C-alpha cells in the first residue's frame, strides 16, 4: 500500500532523508520510530507529496507520488493525521469531519451514518460537534483529527506523532483506539516517538536516525532489541 525506495529529501541545502526504504503492506500496522530531528515528519510530508523526493521513489496505493498531488491521496483511500492535529481552528468539529468525509468518500455510506459511527468510536466528540475546533482541549482535538481521517473509511491511515502533547491517560486511550481501528481492517502507518506504545500495538517497525533507516523488523523484536533501544531511547 505504501513503499519508499531509496528516498532522499532536503530542506534547501540541508539533507533530511537519505536513502530511506520502507513499506507498509495491506492489513499491517507499521510504526516508524525515531528521536527528535530524525526525519519522521519529513517522511510523513514526503509520503503526502508536500515535500518532493529528490531521489528515489514514493509509491502510495500503487501510484507514484512524483506525478500525484497531495490532493489526490484522499480519493485513493488515504486518511492523514498530520503532526499537531492541525484541525481547521475556526471551523466547527462537524465541518472538519465533513471535509474528511468528502475527501475520501463520496460514494460510501452517507455522512450522517458515518458521523454516528465516529461519535460511537469517540464518544466525547458527540457533544462537541457544533463547537469551533480551535476551542477544544488538546485531547479532544487529537480525537477529532483521527475521526476526520477515519470518517471516509480510508484503506490506509498515516498518523504523524498523534500522541504528542497528550496526557499519559489520553495516550493510552488513543493507542487503544488505534489498535481497534487496525483490528477492524484498516492499514496504518504510525509515526511515533513513543516507542513503547507505538511498537506495543504495531506488527513491524522501522527506526529512523539522522534521516536513515537504522533498524527494522517485527515490532516485538525491536522492542526487546538492545541495539534498537539504544537508537531510539
Amino acid at each position, binding site marked *: 500500500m505504501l513503499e519508499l525506495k531509496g528516498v532522499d529529501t532536503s530542506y534547501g541545502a540541508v539533507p533530511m532523508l537519505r536513502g530511506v526504504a520502507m513499506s507498509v503492506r495491506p492489513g499491517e500496522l507499521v510504526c516508524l520510530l525515531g528521536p527528535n530531528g530524525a526525519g519522521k515528519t519529513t517522511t510523513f510530508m514526503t509520503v503526502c507529496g508536500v515535500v518532493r523526493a529528490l531521489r528515489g521513489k514514493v509509491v502510495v496505493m500503487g501510484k507514484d507520488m512524483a506525478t500525484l498531488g497531495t490532493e489526490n491521496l484522499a480519493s485513493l483511500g488515504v486518511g492523514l493525521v498530520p503532526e499537531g492535529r492541525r484541525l481547521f481552528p475556526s471551523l466547527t468539529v462537524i465541518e472538519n469531519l*465533513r471535509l474528511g468525509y*468528502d475527501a475520501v468518500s463520496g460514494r460510501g455510506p452517507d455522512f450522517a451514518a458515518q458521523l454516528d459511527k465516529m461519535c460511537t468510536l469517540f464518544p466525547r466528540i458527540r457533544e462537541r460537534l457544533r463547537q469551533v475546533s480551535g476551542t477544544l482541549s488538546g485531547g479532544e482535538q487529537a480525537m477529532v483529527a483521527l475521526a476526520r481521517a477515519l470518517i471516509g473509511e480510508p484503506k490506509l491511515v498515516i498518523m504523524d506523532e498523534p500522541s504528542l502533547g497528550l496526557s499519559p491517560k489520553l495516550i493510552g486511550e488513543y493507542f487503544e483506539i488505534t489498535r481497534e481501528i487496525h483490528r477492524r481492517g484498516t492499514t496504518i502507518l504510525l509515526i511515533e516517538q513513543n516507542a513503547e506504545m507505538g511498537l506495543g500495538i504495531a506488527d513491524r517497525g522501522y527506526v529512523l536516525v539522522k534521516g536513515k533507516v537504522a533498524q527494522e523488523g517485527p515490532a516485538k523484536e525491536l522492542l526487546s532489541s538492545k541495539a534498537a533501544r539504544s537508537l531510539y531511547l
Partner: protein
Amino acid sequence: MAELLVQQLVNWITLGCIYALLAIGFSLIFGVLNVIHFSHGDVAMTAPFITLGLAQALATALGASIPAWLVLAVPLAVLAVGLIGVLLDKVVIRRFRDAPAMMALVATVALGIVIRELIRHLYPQGSNPHAFPRLVSGMALEISGVAVSWFALLVVVLTVALVTMLFVFLRMTPLGLRIRAASEDRIVARMMGIRDARVFRATFFIASAIGATAGLLFASYAGVTRFDFGVMAGLLGFSAAVIGGLGSMPGAILGGLIIAGIEVLAQTFVTDGASYRLVFVFLLVIAVLIFRPAGLLGRTVMEKV
C-alpha cells in the same frame, strides 16, 4: 441640525457600504492566498469602463439610449470583471502565493499600473474623465425632512444582499467550506482532497465580481469615472480591510463603515474638511497598524495542547 445629521447619516451608510464591498475583496483574497492584491481597486474600477463601453456598443449597434442598455451592461460587466480576476490570478497572482510578501506587493502594484495604462490607451479618450450615470435616479423616501435617493437605497440593499449571499455561500455550501478550510491551512486542505486551483478560481471570481459592483457604485456615486480611480478605490478598500482586520469579513464591513464615517465627519464638522478627509482616514490606518496590527476584528488563533 437634525436634517444635517440625517443627511450625513445617509451619506455615511452609502459610502460605508461601497468601501465595505471593496474591502471584502481584499480580505477574501488575503484570507485564502495570503497575498495582498494591491491591484484589486484597479480591477474593480475596470467595471465602469466595461459598462460604458458595452452600453455604447449596444446603443450603436441596436439603437436606444446608453442608459437604457445599462440594465444589461452592468451585470455583464460584473461577470466580465469576475473573469478578469480569475485570469489575473491564474497568470500572475497565484505565482506569488508562497513568495516573500515584498515580491507579491511589487507584482500586484505593477499589475495595477498595467491595468490603468491599458484602460488609458485602449478606451477611447481614456485619459479623460468620463461621466458615469446614476444607476437609479429619483428620491425614494423622506426621513426627517431629508430626501433619501433610490441610489442610496440601492447601495444599501445591494450590499446587504451581497454580504448575505457571501455569508450563506461560505457557511452553507461545500465550496464555501473548502474556501474557509484553505484559508486556514492550505497544506492540510490539500490533504483533505481540496484542490487549490478551484478554491483560488472561486475566490478570485467572487472577490472581483463584488469589487466590480463596488466599482460601479463608486463611479455612480461620484458621477464620473477615470482610468486612475482604482488607486484611490484600492487604497480606501485596503485601508478598510486593514482597520477591520485583513481576512475578516465582518472586519471588512466594519472597516468600510469606519472609514466612511471619518470622511463624512471630517466633511461635516471640520473647516475645509473635504480637503482633509483623507488625512484623517490614513492617520487612523497608521494608528491601527501601530496599536492593533491585526485590525479591530483580526484573527487570533489559540494553540492548545
